[in-house]
């Protein structure tokens, strides 16, 4: 009799503990909270937290707890250790984060071995999602904006010739390859390709821009990493009188990152960019998002494309938790996300069921002055853009 009672008690205990486990979903967050990436990590982190805060009722009855780890640098090793410990020590159900592509690349074998859903919220090297079957990306690939811009330059801006200036590291090369491929496919010609130093420090852009100016192209496509490069780009462009020479400065939205744009001031006016998000987008979700952001983090702050990567990534995780009723099984989670549609601040998005990468709109925007601030005016839009690199199976994007 006692034996039965003990068994029953044990069974009850087992039930309640498994019930308690079903209630809480642990999300391991790997971001560079310190060092040169700290400013980006904060944007992604705030994006995630804001989604959880605004959608507390969507999370219920489950509890999502974030376990945050600093991956410190783009070197890969620290990111690997952080991800490994999140998997083996904290037994997380889902992984999230990744600002730098090298960290996502270094983490791939561990993610595969750990068999947990991993949501990439920024890292943009195109082929990353092919490296682990558990990677799902809610940010972008460099090809999204670069490829769309090539086509738009020829068709909407009527450009015949272009010069490409790029920061000499993989996202820059990706951007160049994407732009060149689509621009030349619709009859344009890239007359010069100018590598402009590494990503580590902001160079003096004058010699590169002078070389571009001498070629007299219709458009000058510039890729520099998000952060402090863009202000120098805009300044040099103005100083060399390139606009007066009839050369349009264009690029992906990294050169008009919302958090940096106002500091550039009037010099930024006339910049034409292609990107999936900026804070001036006119749709109800974005209005709500920007308003909530300013209320939460201060009127002087603004979300940008990195923040949206975190926000949408968290939306994806919440969707998984709801669909699977709090018990996150990785295979089922992947199934739940394939083809998932969401009304994001950047417009409608979807996870491509084949590549696990994002499908979204790309917006062609021009920077104008409005009410004493730089405003990004949408002048063109391409719906449902997929990552062209994987779509056309180029180089490392070809399935293995």
């Amino acid at each position, binding site marked *: 009799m006692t034996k039965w009672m003990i068994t029953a008690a044990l069974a009850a205990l087992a039930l309640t503990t498994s019930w308690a486990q079903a209630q809480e979903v642990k999300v391991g967050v790997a971001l560079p909270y310190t060092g040169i990436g700290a400013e980006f990590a904060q944007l992604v982190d705030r994006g995630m937290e804001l989604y959880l805060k605004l959608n507390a009722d969507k999370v219920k009855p489950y509890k999502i707890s974030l376990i*945050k780890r*600093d991956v410190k*640098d783009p070197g890969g090793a620290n990111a690997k250790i952080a991800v490994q410990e999140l998997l083996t020590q904290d037994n997380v159900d889902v992984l999230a984060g990744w600002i730098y592509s090298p960290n996502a690349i270094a983490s791939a*074998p561990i993610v595969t071995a750990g068999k947990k859903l991993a949501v990439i919220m920024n890292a943009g090297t195109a082929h990353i999602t092919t490296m682990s079957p558990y990677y799902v990306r809610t940010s972008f690939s460099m090809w999204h904006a670069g490829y769309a811009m090539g086509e738009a330059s020829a068709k909407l801006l009527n450009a015949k010739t272009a010069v490409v200036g790029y920061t*000499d590291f993989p996202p820059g090369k990706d951007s160049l390859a994407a732009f060149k491929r689509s621009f030349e496919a619709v009859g344009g010609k890239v007359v010069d390709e100018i590598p402009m130093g590494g990503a580590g420090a902001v160079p003096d852009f004058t010699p590169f821009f002078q070389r571009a100016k001498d070629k007299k192209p219709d458009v000058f496509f510039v890729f520099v990493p998000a952060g402090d490069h863009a202000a120098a780009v805009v300044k040099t462009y103005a100083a060399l009188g390139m606009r007066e020479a009839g050369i349009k400065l264009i690029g992906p939205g990294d050169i008009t990152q919302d958090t940096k744009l106002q500091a550039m001031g009037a010099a930024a006016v006339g910049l034409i960019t292609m990107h999936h998000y900026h804070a001036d987008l006119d749709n109800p979700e974005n209005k709500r998002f920007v308003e909530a952001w300013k209320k939460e983090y201060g009127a002087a702050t603004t979300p940008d494309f990195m923040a949206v990567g975190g926000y949408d990534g968290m939306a994806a995780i919440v969707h998984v938790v709801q669909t699977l009723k709090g018990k996150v099984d990785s295979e089922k989670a992947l199934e739940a996300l394939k083809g998932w549609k969401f009304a994001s601040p950047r417009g409608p998005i979807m996870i491509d069921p084949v590549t696990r990468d994002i499908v979204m709109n790309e917006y062609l925007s021009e920077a104008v002055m409005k009410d004493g601030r730089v405003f990004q005016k949408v002048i063109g839009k391409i719906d449902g853009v997929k990552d062209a690199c994987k779509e056309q199976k180029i180089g490392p994007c070809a399935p293995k």
Partner: protein
Amino acid sequence: MTEPVDHPAARALAERHRLRIWEAIPWLLALGFFFAFPKHLGFGTELLVTVLFAISLDLVLGYAGIVTLGQAAFFGAGAYTVGILAKQGIWHEPITGLLLAALVAAAVGFGSGLVLLRTQGLTLLMLTLCTMALLEEAANLAHDYTGGFDGLDSLPIAPLFGRFEFNPLYPTTQYLYVLAVLFVCFVFVRMLVYSPFGQSLRGIRENMLRMHAVGAPVRGRLVLCYTLSAAIAGVAGGIWAQANAYVNLGTLGLDRAATVLIILVLGGHGRLYGAFIGAVAYISLSHFLARIYPTAWQLGLGLLLVVIALFARNGILGIAAALRRPAHRAAS
């Protein structure tokens, strides 16, 4: 032949190379760590590689007095040797891979040492930094072979002795492998610094002019020391690449070179075990502080470094030595 002088100083000189009982402690602790913390082995492996790397720096900086900021050049040379050979499908076996890494790093060390070691002081410091920066940029440019900024990933490294796989999630093999290699390299360095060669290095560090005067081949010794140190740094880099199945530009960066310098100064240079103490203190502190405060952990680490710099010029082991000294004096 005269009788050996029976004097405490002479005895101390004659016996200083002997093994002491406490020298087993670090190794026992490292083995204990393996059994006690099976889920921390990724961190442990990184720690052991850093110790090995710091030992290579101790040889040039602590013993020969060559002030360098470019030690990561050799770490990276070793790492990329392993990485490129594995990625191109030329060589997968780990142990011989390490020997190749050591050879390549030694060649880089020898070549650059021949030129660099003609200079001293700040010039030398700048030139070591430049060598490293040149290598880093070369690795960035040779994108087809090195993978550029993204690095080389998923390196196919063969199982150790054909049997023990490198598991990315539970790096037990990696930990024991790195520990064994560290032990072998440490024994080699220990023999080296107590050999006549090691003594002459100390002489050069203390008074180069006098070593010239007694006819010691100063430059040759320095170049040889620099080359050996490069080889060990190459082994550290190679084993790092094998343990992580990954290599990227971070292996050649100033970050790594500066960190290892801080670690050595923190632990105490020219003391063999300073590398152990410094690495354990620095890496553990940054690792566990970062877990508690992901955004503000550097504050704690910075405070420790300030305190060490202000009050313990010879590092943590320097404090220990300073505490021991009065006791010795009282005894004799």
